[in-house]
């Protein structure tokens, strides 16, 4: 091995190991090195999910097609994060408005079927897991575009 090669190989071994240890020791992500904290917090008898629905001209709600991102856990975390920001109401509204605009763009392009929507609403559902059947309650997070 040449001197340069020895240096490169040593760095490729020691660098990732040192950064993995650092992420572990600090308890935080040093991308792509992680402390792997998924599911390490204690789960309780309540779970919350975030969902977005489209509002039809007659006021009825309908599910958004999967092509309109973000969905599922990503939407949930996005809303969590936006809710903590200083301009939370405006930021949340912009997310809903962007989802509405994306739906209308896909509809106009013929990529999805569906009626025109007047808005997109984002709900946070809280589900009680200790009851049978599980009890679900919904709270409106935001709506966009505003009338």
């Amino acid at each position, binding site marked *: 091995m040449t001197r340069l090669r020895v240096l*490169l190989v040593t760095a490729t071994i020691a660098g990732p190991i040192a950064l993995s240890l650092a992420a*572990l020791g600090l308890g935080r992500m040093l991308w*792509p090195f992680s402390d*792997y904290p998924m599911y*390490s917090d204690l789960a309780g008898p309540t779970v919350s*999910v975030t969902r977005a629905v489209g509002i039809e001209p007659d006021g009825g709600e309908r599910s958004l097609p999967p*092509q309109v991102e973000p969905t599922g856990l990503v939407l949930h975390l996005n809303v969590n994060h936006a809710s903590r920001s200083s301009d939370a109401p405006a930021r949340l509204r912009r997310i809903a408005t962007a989802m509405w605009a994306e739906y209308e763009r896909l509809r106009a392009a013929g990529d999805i079927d569906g009626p025109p929507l007047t808005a997109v609403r984002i709900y946070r559902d809280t589900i009680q897991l200790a009851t049978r059947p599980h009890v679900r309650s919904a709270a409106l997070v935001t709506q966009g575009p505003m009338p």
Partner: protein
Amino acid sequence: MSVRETVRSFFFVPSAPTNLAVCRLIFFGWLFFCFLGYDVAQWARVPADTWEPVWFVELFGRLPSAATLTGLGIAWKVSLVLGALGLWRPVSLGVAAVLGAYLLGLTGSFGKANYDIGMPVILLFVFWVARSTDALSLDALIARRRGNPPASPSGEYTWPLATGRVLLALAFFAAGVAKLRHGGVDWITTDNLRWLFIGQQYTHAPPLNWAVYLAEFPGLCRLLAGGTMALELSYPLAIFVPRIRPWLVVGAIGLQLGIHLFMGVNYLAFIVANIVWVDWSQVGTAVRSPRLAVRTAAA
């Protein structure tokens, strides 16, 4: 033997180039099939307010257009195929590593951290630096045609896989430490895993709903929680104690498959990293001559 000599021997004991080559072939092939359907352009359609790039993605400035992302996605997938075939290593594996870090980094750049892609990204860079195409590759075939002798055993073929083993051990150990740090012993002794099993049915879409039935047995859930933490915290022993290595490695693969099937969290891109534990030369011997393989293993 001193610590320095032990470490040196662990990383640089000479080995044949075949092991590393088989790992390269499987790793790149697996990633190609895992991400064949990955629609990179989707990120251009996500609301701009959710954009929170990881540092590597941020290096490249603002998010490109959907058309550019599609082009980058195709280039990356082609580089993965070339990586599996072992053609033009410095270029193909370099493109696979850099584009892979960028495109997989995007999955963690919209408010959701993705813990399953870190290991593949790191290993892409390790395979790039390593002499991973010295055997079972088009590069090796071309070199042979030019009259170069076949690669002989060297430490160059040992350190990449040894590094992968240490990184895997640290990843599982970190997961165990995180559970102790955030949940403590309550992570095992309470109904934590039971609630998690039920809650996942609402937050994710598991391929199987068996976790709902497991949740009917709180004692079994605690046993599974204890087993999970014990497995994660003891995983580094796989490096030092060959006798328990298969149990720990197979157990960890089972854990990740279980999380995928019962909880809907996809670790398929991560699971492939476990190939670094396999002695592929012995597998090859077993395929060619089962009796000889048993004798070699016994020796």
